């Protein structure tokens, strides 16, 4: 019988909204109430968590694993290893692999392959449309039945409003949340970065911020009208924050996500045509970064997710025009978020909500996201004061496309405990 006692940690539990020094006991992969006899037991692993924060296992609900199809960018295994290195006990992978995860065969392949490694939990997100092509609904019932937790055409926004409307309704039949990559793709056009002073300076095509806002507005209205549950991924602009306020004030059943890069760096990161700062939605000016940070402080966001999007060095080693969108984020997501903890924008409870409790709730992940007797033994132990530097040679992800390489951080993950199994970092 595997037993683990985490002693003296500051336990942050969003479910009970408490942050108190106490012990956590995990037996056979499940959290159990601490009893006096367990504390003295002999055959027990003990982690001394003095001065460390003990959070329910972090969940990154927006990750691109590149298998099947693009194993040179990332495999299921390397993605899981990167997740653990970043303190995540669960990740959810988007469907834009090749073939696209739009059917039970691909879905089962990913789930089974992930299970064959004794690493982190992997939950799959199936496609909204067959092949992410925006022409037919995917077999959403089959996806649900074979284990997918949500549907999304992330990366390929659903342009046709009637398809989006029907997807919301059809998914509702199966109690499946829909995750929207909200973007007016025609308005993005050939844009490669935020449209503004910097894109003008570099002489490249810009992506207007309204390309995001128009689409978010549409999706809010669709979800409101059809009474469906919707999650909006990777929100990046000030204008979008205004839309979130509107939606939340109207009590609409929508949740919103942002990513660490949108509150950490600006479009100036692209000044040297840095393709490792090219992503979609693009990095924005300081004004937008401030708006995202303030929205996080005001509790407008539900989720922080990395949008981990690996691309090979060869693919990124080119012009801004040619390089693909996306950066890796699993190994820097927590550290960047802890930056907001140090800046007093977020409390530890906020972080546990944004990176564990809410993702579990949105995706209806059973027995995760909170430290409750009987829940899965998923725990992330954090030292917010520990200093470290993100070095390329230490990156676990197969791809190295990050604008944060060589950045020094304050705040690190010490342990990831996944279904009771200890990963010391």
């Amino acid at each position, binding site marked *: 019988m595997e037993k683990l006692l985490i002693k003296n940690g500051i336990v942050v539990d969003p479910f009970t909204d408490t942050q108190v020094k106490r012990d956590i006991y995990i037996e056979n992969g499940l959290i159990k109430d601490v009893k006096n006899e367990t504390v003295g037991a002999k055959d027990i692993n003990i982690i001394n968590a003095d001065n460390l924060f003990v959070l329910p296992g972090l969940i990154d609900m927006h990750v691109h694993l590149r298998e099947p199809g693009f194993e040179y960018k990332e495999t299921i295994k390397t993605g899981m290893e990167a997740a653990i290195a970043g303190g995540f006990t669960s990740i959810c992978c988007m469907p834009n692999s090749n073939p696209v995860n739009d059917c039970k065969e691909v879905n089962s392949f990913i789930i089974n392959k992930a299970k064959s490694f004794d690493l982190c939990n992997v939950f799959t997100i199936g496609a909204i449309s*067959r092949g992410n092509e925006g022409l*037919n*609904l*995917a*077999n*959403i*019932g*089959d996806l649900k*039945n074979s284990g997918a937790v949500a549907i999304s055409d992330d990366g390929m926004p659903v342009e*046709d409003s*009637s*398809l989006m409307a*029907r*997807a919301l*309704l*059809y998914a*509702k*039949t*199966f109690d499946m949340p829909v995750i929207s990559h909200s973007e007016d793709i025609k308005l993005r056009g050939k844009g490669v970065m935020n449209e503004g002073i910097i894109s003008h300076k570099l002489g490249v095509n810009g992506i207007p911020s309204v390309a995001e806002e128009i689409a978010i507005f549409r999706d809010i209205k669709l979800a409101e009208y*059809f009474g469906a549950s919707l999650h909006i991924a990777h929100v990046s602009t000030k204008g979008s924050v205004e839309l979130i306020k509107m939606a939340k004030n109207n009590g609409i059943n929508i949740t919103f996500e942002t990513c660490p890069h949108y509150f950490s760096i600006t479009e100036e990161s692209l000044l040297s045509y840095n393709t490792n700062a090219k992503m979609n939605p693009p990095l924005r000016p300081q004004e937008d970064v401030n708006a995202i940070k303030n929205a996080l402080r005001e509790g407008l966001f539900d989720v922080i997710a990395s949008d981990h999007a690996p691309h090979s060095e060869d693919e990124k080693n080119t012009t801004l025009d040619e390089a693909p969108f996306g950066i890796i984020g699993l190994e820097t997501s927590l550290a960047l978020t802890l930056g907001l903890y140090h800046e007093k924008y977020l409390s530890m409870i906020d972080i546990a909500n944004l990176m564990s409790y809410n993702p579990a709730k949105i995706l209806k992940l059973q027995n995760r996201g909170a430290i409750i007797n009987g829940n899965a033994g998923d725990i992330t132990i954090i030292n917010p004061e520990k200093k470290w530097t993100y070095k390329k040679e230490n990156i676990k992800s197969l791809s190295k496309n990050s604008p944060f390489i060589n950045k020094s951080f304050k705040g690190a993950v010490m342990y990831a405990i996944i279904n009771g199994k200890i990963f010391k970092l």
Partner: protein
Amino acid sequence: MDYAKKDLISINDLSKSDILYFIDTAKEFKKISLQDIKKVPTMRGKTILNLFFEPSTRTKTSFEIAQKRLSADTINLSISQSSVVKGESLSDTILNLQAMKADAFVIRHYESGAPFFISNITNASVINAGDGINEHPTQCLLDIMTIFEHKKEIKSLKIAIIGDIVHSRVARSDIAGLSKLGAEIYLYGPQTLMPRFINSDNIKIAGSMDNAVKEADVIIMLRVQKERTAFYFIPSIEEYRNYFKLTGEILKLASKDVLILHPGPVNRDVEISGSIINSGKTAIFDQVENGIAIRMACLYILLGGRHS
């Protein structure tokens, strides 16, 4: 009992006692079809035009047989070979046919409201044989007749209607008619195919197939059209089959003496297991048989009854 209107356009135009009057009349006419010589002279000298703007096997044949058994003179206008294809308007078509002294028009049209439009421009009786996604009143009446043959009362029966409700004129007429008789109606299907504005307490959208079928006294299965995949209402026929088909297993949840109806045409093993039909558990052929009686009754009440 009398029925004063010249047309049968919508079930909503009928009161509860009107419905019962149509059913009672149909019961009498059903006997004619069981005779050796299946013909009565009731409607001799009446001219009835069947205008089918949309393909139909069951309904068209059923009306035609009903008319012949009543000795009416029946003309089937084949729309594809008529002036309609030359661009004649609907109203001109009707006015010309009326000038030929038609006593009744039986209309099947792909547009909702077409029979209503026609009823307003002609003195002849108009029977709606199905209009767009709107109504199919004679189907509703024959369904009610069939239910009455198996159940004493419709009041408080749990009736599940499963499938493409939003595009089904049968469902809409059935819901209206069965509601008037006091049934508790449970609708189920993909949310994309469910009506979104229901303002009646006796009509509920079930949360699952199991909930819809559980302890149901009557189950009405609807045909799903393959074309529904084109506008994203369903992903595929395979998916529909996997999650919205009435199977023997699900059927076990229903009331012991559940009555299963289907307006036809059936997509076997799409909306209903072929084995359920093969094992004789449905009343599909009773519905077809009663269809003739109902249509005879309708013609009689609208034409014969009114003028005699």
